[in-house]
Structures are given as structure tokens and as C-alpha cells.
């Protein structure tokens, strides 16, 4: 089990470093002087030189790279230019919201996807199945930020069931938190739920043809147990795979969703940092998202290993 997780962790390392290296290279190799861009048109040559020195931009690139690596490993990315405090103190304030948003979105997506996929598979080729399959095709093509706007129009503006925007942390109470997280999470999860519906449907149809399902029936187990325990147990595996793959997608989608619903998460922080040319914070945001992604992936690998005993022995 530990060996399996260790191996998974090694496979995740590129996920953490490749994006960071890309940002590093973009930052250092792109034309124009980041220090100049950060300080704007009014800056004097001395100010720019001072900032270049502070950021280490006056060093040769390989020296910068070594400093940069040291910064990442020690989780020290310097100070935010806008907030004037260490990046690594700012990040945790935003990361929680994004993680919660992604997790709730994933939970909604799994709930919707598994339910619809199951209903669809159990009613194969009946009208309800066709309806679900069509809805899933549409859902996969739905841009999440547009769907978010439609949700706001229907449920917040017209029906007034939910606030239009804003965020209550879970500490404010579950209902208050749920009211501000539900629509964003639904919007963020819609494509995943469509994807999972399709996955669940086809994997359920496959599993129902498996001999062990016939065995369960031949042993006299009631159909509810056969489907709910014997078939679901294996049919859910591909859905978990989709869930694992969707971590990156959810964190990406969180950027637009956080902006639309004014949630104080990493995505919004990143876009605001981009607007302020706060490079250390941009780098920090990318690092934070990489780390969250890595952790989410490991958690899903762990769930996988718990559900499928075969994996533990590979």
C-alpha cells in the first residue's frame, strides 16, 4: 500500500514542477523587463534596478534557477509586491475556499453522474435513457462560466433562492455556507457530472454482463443487492478514475467560477495578482494549485486502492 502510494507520488512530481518551470521560463525569458512592468511607467531607473536586485533578476539565469528551486523546496517565494507580506502567508487564506469549492463540486458531480448513469443503464434504450444520454452530450459541451451565469439568472435573480454572489465560510454555519457554495459548485461540476453520467452508464452496462453478477443472482440475492452492492462496486471504478482526472479541470474551472461568484479563492487571487503584476504571488498561486492538485490526486489514488484490492498488490 505504501509502496503503491509512493509510486503514485513520484508520478505526480512532474505535475508540480512542469507548470512551475514553464512559469519560471516565461517570466525570465519573455521580452520586456518584469521589474519595469511591475512598477509601471512612472518608475525611475533606480527603483527598477532596486527591484531587479530584490527579485534576483540581475543574476545569470542558472543562478536564478537555483534560487528559485531553493525557494520552492523551502516554500519561500518571497514577498508579495502588492500585499507586502510573504507569499506563503497569503496563499493559505485563499486555498481553503478553492479546495472546498472543488471538493463540493466533485461531490455534486459524482452524486449526479452516478445517479443519472445508473438510471440510464437500468432503463437502457428507453426514453428516459435517451433523455439522459442527450443531456449528457449537452452537459459536456456546456461552458461552465456561461452555465454559472444561467444559474444565477434562474436561481438567484429570478427565484431568489440563493445569493447572487459572495461567500460564507463553513464556520458561519452549514446552511449559510451551503447557500453560497451550491451554485458555484454546481456550475463547476456540470461538465464532470455529464462525463460521469456517460462513464457510469457504459460501465454499468458492461458490469451487468459480468459473470459475477449472474453468480450473485444465481445465489438468490435480491436485485437491489445485486445492483447496489455487487454491480455498483465495480461499475463505480471508472467514475473514480474520472474523478481523479477531473481534479485539474476543477481547479482550472474554479478560476472563472470564483470570479463570477466573488469567492475569495486561489483562482481569483491569481487573476487579481496578474492584474497587479504581482509576480511572486502569481508564482505562488501556480505552486499552490500544483500542490492542491497533487494532494487531490493522492487522495483519489488512496480511495482507489481502498476500493479495489487488486491495486494494492500491483
Amino acid at each position, binding site marked *: 500500500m505504501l509502496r503503491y502510494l509512493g509510486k503514485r507520488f513520484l508520478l505526480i512530481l512532474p505535475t508540480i514542477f512542469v507548470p512551475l518551470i514553464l512559469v519560471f521560463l516565461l517570466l525570465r525569458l519573455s521580452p520586456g523587463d518584469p521589474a519595469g512592468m511591475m512598477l509601471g511607467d512612472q518608475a525611475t531607473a533606480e527603483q527598477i534596478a532596486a527591484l531587479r536586485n530584490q527579485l534576483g533578476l540581475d543574476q545569470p539565469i542558472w543562478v536564478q534557477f537555483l534560487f528559485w528551486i531553493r525557494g520552492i523546496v523551502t516554500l519561500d517565494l518571497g514577498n508579495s509586491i502588492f500585499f507586502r507580506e510573504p507569499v506563503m502567508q497569503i496563499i493559505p487564506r485563499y486555498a481553503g475556499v478553492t479546495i472546498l469549492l472543488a471538493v463540493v463540486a466533485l461531490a455534486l458531480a459524482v452524486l449526479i453522474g452516478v445517479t443519472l448513469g445508473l438510471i440510464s443503464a437500468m432503463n437502457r434504450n428507453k426514453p428516459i435513457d435517451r433523455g439522459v444520454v442527450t443531456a449528457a452530450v449537452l452537459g459536456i459541451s456546456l461552458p461552465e462560466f456561461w452555465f454559472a451565469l444561467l444559474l444565477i439568472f434562474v436561481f438567484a435573480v429570478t427565484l431568489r433562492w440563493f445569493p447572487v454572489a459572495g461567500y460564507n465560510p463553513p464556520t458561519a454555519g452549514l446552511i449559510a455556507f451551503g447557500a453560497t457554495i451550491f451554485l458555484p459548485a454546481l456550475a463547476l461540476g456540470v461538465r464532470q457530472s455529464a462525463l460521469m453520467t456517460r462513464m457510469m452508464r457504459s460501465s454499468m452496462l458492461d458490469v451487468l454482463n459480468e*459473470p459475477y453478477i449472474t*453468480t450473485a*443472482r444465481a*445465489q438468490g*440475492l435480491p436485485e437491489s443487492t445485486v445492483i447496489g*452492492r455487487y454491480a455498483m*462496486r*465495480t461499475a463505480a471504478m471508472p467514475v473514480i478514475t474520472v474523478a481523479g482526472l477531473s481534479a485539474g479541470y476543477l481547479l482550472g474551472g474554479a478560476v472563472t467560477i470564483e470570479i463570477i461568484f466573488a469567492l475569495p479563492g486561489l483562482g481569483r487571487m491569481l487573476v487579481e495578482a496578474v492584474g497587479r503584476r504581482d509576480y511572486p504571488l502569481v508564482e505562488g498561486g501556480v505552486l499552490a494549485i500544483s500542490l492542491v492538485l497533487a494532494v487531490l490526486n493522492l487522495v483519489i489514488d488512496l480511495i482507489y486502492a481502498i476500493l479495489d*484490492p487488486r491495486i494494492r498488490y500491483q
Partner: protein
Amino acid sequence: MTAHITPLPAETVSPGAARKTVLEVENLSLAFRNADGLLPIVTDVSFAIAEGEAVALVGESGCGKSITASAIMGIAPDNAEIAGNITLNGTVISALPPKDRRRLCGRHMGFIFQEPMTALHPTLSIGRQMTDTLRHNLGLSHKDATDRAAELLDRVGIPRARDILRGYVHELSGGMRQRVMIALAISCGPSLIIADEPTTALDVTIQAQVLDLLEDMRRELNLAMLFITHDLEVVGDFCEKAVVMYAGDVVERGFSADIVRSPAHPYARGLIDAVPAHDDGRTRLTPILGTVPPVGQWPEGCRFAPRCGRADAQCRTRPSLERHGVTDARCWHPLEDRP
């Protein structure tokens, strides 16, 4: 129905005594309903099995053996139209609604599949699969079910039963898997066991062990057993009676010894000649030319006629299953060369 698996005293199983009929199949027909109408798969199958008796259902693949078995079990696909009577322990079960049929599974009928690797759940522990069945069918508590499962595994010759209960199917060897399958099938004290080619997927050395185990279980528990196979050699050694199927039809029926020694139907003869035997001095195997016609393309009269050396014009009409010497055969020109 109590679920004790205590063996019956040997004298009650003596072959001479009049044995109770466990399963009776009369004129069983099965057809698949598809877009074009009904596609017949099995026609007019009749046979009976008494307690403690093993009956073989023999034929090449595609003859309708397995689907016959699933029709008896009540686990045929939804689009199957089934006609005829199936009687289990004196009750006509073919007319029962699906829910009631399902209740007979496990408790009164056990099923052993060909490939235990795929017939056992890959991600539920062996113990879980056994206790699920025991708890549902017999209403046992979790602890009692676990004890019982361990007892059953012990009984089918699995060492360290308690450990195996915690394990998964992929951790076991092929022979062990089939033993688990057998333990599962007999777990709730059925009177009928249907074994669908239970040794085909196993190594030759293991096959004999599993056959011995099945035989032991049959004797000890006085089980009626329907044994589906394509191996006539096994039939002679293992089953008292045999039903030979070809293209959805019963073509010959009788005591296995008679059929193996002197078959009346040319198809049964062909099956025997195609098996390497050790004692009749034959030096060459004679394959049956051609293949079983696919479902939906059966010839009008005798379905074996296109592959049969004895076929003539009469074979264009359908023969009925009639007594020829010591066995029943569905043939216009049964073989007469009996010793």
C-alpha cells in the same frame, strides 16, 4: 427448507431404492425476442433428475446447454421467452413470478460456473460474498454466517479457511477458486446443483480433484446434479444419465454408460469418436465434419442432417425422440451396431 449440510446415512442413497425426483423438465423451449420476432434457441427439452443423481447435458458449444441451465435457474436474459414446465421438488416453478423464482436460487438450486475467476466478485472478499448469501437466504447473523462460511470452505478442502475468507478471488489458484465456487453453491443447502462446465477452465491435474469434490458433495448431500459438459469421457465416469443436445434439441437421452458404449444417434457417435479413448484400440480420432449451424439457421427437419453421413430424404422431416434399444434418440436412422 432447513440448511443443514449434514450427510445423509449411506443406506438411504443406495441406488436400488426409489429416489425422489428433484428436477423435472418437460418440453422446455426458449426463444429470444428481438426486433425481427422470436429466435428459437432451445426446443422441446425434457429430462428428470432424482436426488443423489448426476445427469450430464452434453453437446458442442452453441447447442443451447448453458441457456437451458439458466432457464432452469430462472436467470435467463430478460428477452427470453420460455415455454414448458419446470418442476422442482414437486412444485411447478416455471409459472412463478421472477421474484419468487429468485428466492429459489441459492436456497434450493445452486449454480457452479465455468470460470470461477470471473464468476466471483473481483473486489468483494470471499467471505463477504459467502456471508451475503448465507445471511440473505438463511437469515443468519453476521457471526453465524462467517462461522458457517469457514465451515463450508473447510468442507470443500480449503486450508486456512478463516484467512481465505478475508482474501479476494485473484489471490487464489484456479482449483481453489472453483472450490470456493462450489462452497458458495452448496452453502444454503440446495437440493439441485447445476454445474456449467465446472472443470473446463482448469488445469488437467486440477480437473480430477474438482470432479472428485463434486462427486463427494453429491454423495454426501444427496444432491441432484445437472452437469453441463462437452466431454463425453467425463460423462461416462461421473454421471448416471446423459442428455445429448444438438442445435437446441435433445438428440439422445439415456444412461450414460449405454450412450457412451453404443450410442443410437450419429451425433452422439461422432462426439464419442472425437474423444481420445484409451481402451478401444482406435488409432485415429474422427472429427465431426462441419460446425453447429448458428441459431436462426437451423435446417427444417433433422438439424444434424447436413453433417450426418446417414442422412437421406426422410431426414427432411423432423424426427421425434423415441426409444431405440436402451436409449431415446431423435433420429430416423439410429445406429444399430450394439454389442
